[in-house]
């Protein structure tokens, strides 16, 4: 089998049925990473010995007729803000290289491995997750597999590029303001940002406690669902993780989308959209027969409040290192964090009050709609090094504005699946947004779009 472009579900089925061994899959994957990573720079650590040992254990279990998990033998890699036992948790920074090695894997890693997945490495990311580009001054820029001169998107840059380039079928990222959905768009893959509090963040390096989420990236909606199902469940180690039972989505994917009320996000989400995103949105809307357009109430203010909470809470995490070793930060991150440390507290408190107001009005909206479509990014992947872009006829700084359409959504923790559409010049993604705790709806729609061929992760010409 072509382990370089197979879906996780197909690899797991082949391993369970004995058509391929987990060891062969892991060996192929490590060899492919060694071959392709120098050009893409998605990986910061490759865990060859660990991966082969885990794969051999899976093959041994199978030889003893033991039961194998739903992700048996599926290689995956994680953004390097997830703890991996034996490695310092870099979070894309130089400073964290001096941290003691983690003594335990992050909860999400443990849960994926319990389902049979095989961790093969740690992935590049924007420093401390304060990034939408994929550029990193310490570990080198991560590159977009569809065009190596372009950004993969961030901050889960390696998570997007490794999946899009066929280095792994599955990765984990984190999303505070769009850091799963932006790389999904620029790299042309599927990404799931679950409801805030759905998946445990235990054992991940924090950015903004009020807004941090973790989730999977893959080349199919089914693979997202498989990984998501394996990671669900309460976790006392993360106080934000909800005390909800596991609500498996994989068995529901085939239910179709009949009867679902779906609308397009208008107003704020239509301003500044580049032609490639307009094309992608039109294709998705046509495939779903969506005509209605609705408005998120005060989306512009919501984005502003998310921006302010991010700057303030992010600064609080890094205040001490900012005092002692500012020169060791990426300048683009450092200067924003310093500014964030100076935001008056009353302004941040007001942002959190506005957040509750906005949540109430968004929930009201979802009484009438099951899902809403919106662009994941304004444009397809810009060139690495690009500093500005023209948004609604105004030249603006690129770095903070790539997430204008993702921020108002994660601000109130709504679940979103980013679905890729193969348009010119490069693929982009559309957000399928659902009400809190209704990941099932967004994933069912993504799966239906994939079956019609409208949503697809295109294969880049790397080999």
């Amino acid at each position: 089998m072509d382990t370089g472009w197979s879906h996780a579900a197909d690899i797991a089925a082949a391993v369970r049925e004995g058509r391929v061994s987990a060891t062969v899959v892991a060996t192929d994957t490590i060899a492919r990473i060694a071959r392709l990573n120098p050009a893409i720079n998605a990986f910061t650590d490759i865990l060859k010995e660990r991966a082969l040992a885990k794969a051999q254990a899976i093959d041994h279990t199978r030889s003893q007729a033991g039961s194998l998990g739903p992700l048996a033998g599926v290689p995956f890699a994680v953004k390097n803000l997830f703890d991996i036992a034996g490695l310092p948790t870099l979070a894309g920074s130089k400073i964290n290289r001096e941290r003691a090695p983690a003594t335990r894997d992050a909860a999400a890693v443990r849960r994926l491995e319990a389902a049979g997945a095989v961790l093969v490495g740690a992935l590049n990311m924007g420093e401390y997750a304060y990034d939408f580009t994929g550029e990193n001054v310490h570990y080198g820029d991560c590159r977009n597999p569809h065009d190596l001169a372009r950004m993969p998107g961030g901050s889960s840059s390696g998570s997007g590029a490794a999946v899009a380039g066929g280095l792994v079928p599955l990765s984990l990222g984190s999303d505070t303001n769009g850091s799963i959905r932006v790389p999904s768009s620029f790299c042309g893959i599927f990404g799931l940002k679950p409801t805030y509090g759905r998946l445990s963040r235990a054992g991940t390096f924090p950015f903004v406690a009020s807004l941090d989420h973790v989730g999977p990236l893959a080349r199919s909606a089914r693979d997202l669902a498989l990984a998501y199902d394996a990671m669900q469940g309460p976790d006392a180690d993360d106080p934000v993780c909800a005390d909800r039972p596991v609500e498996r989505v994989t068995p529901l994917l085939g239910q179709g989308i009949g009867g679902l009320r779906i609308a397009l996000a208008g107003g704020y989400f239509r301003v500044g959209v580049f032609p490639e995103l307009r094309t992608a949105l039109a294709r998705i809307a046509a495939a779903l027969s969506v005509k209605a357009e609705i408005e998120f109430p005060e989306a512009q203010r919501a984005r502003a409040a998310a921006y302010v909470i991010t700057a303030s809470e992010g600064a609080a995490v890094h205040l001490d290192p900012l005092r002692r070793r500012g020169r060791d930060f990426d300048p683009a991150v450092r200067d924003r964090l310093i500014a964030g440390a100076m935001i008056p507290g009353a302004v941040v408190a007001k942002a959190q009050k506005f957040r509750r107001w906005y949540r109430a009005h968004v929930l009201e909206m979802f009484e009438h709609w099951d899902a809403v479509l919106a662009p994941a990014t304004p444009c397809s992947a810009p060139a690495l090094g690009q500093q500005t872009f023209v948004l609604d006829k105004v030249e603006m700084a690129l770095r903070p504005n790539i997430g204008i359409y993702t921020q108002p959504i994660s601000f109130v923790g709504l679940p979103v699946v980013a679905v890729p559409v193969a348009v010119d010049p490069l693929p982009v993604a559309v957000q399928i947004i659902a009400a809190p705790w209704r990941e099932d709806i967004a994933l069912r729609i993504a799966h239906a779009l994939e079956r019609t061929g409208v949503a697809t992760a295109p294969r880049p010409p790397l080999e």
Partner: protein
Amino acid sequence: METPRSNELAQFIQAAACLLDLPIEPAWKDAVKGHLEVTLRLAASFTEFPLPDEAEPAPVFVA
């Protein structure tokens, strides 16, 4: 030429940096000021939004 408001912001940053014990090298100052300027401009968009005095913030502490 700095506008009065721009000058006030520079003074605020200098004072805040001192109070927070946050060293800012000369080469970083313009960028920090630019970021704070954008942040406060964005903040104005929701601080001016009318909310009742009783409005609760989103995070809820559970004892």
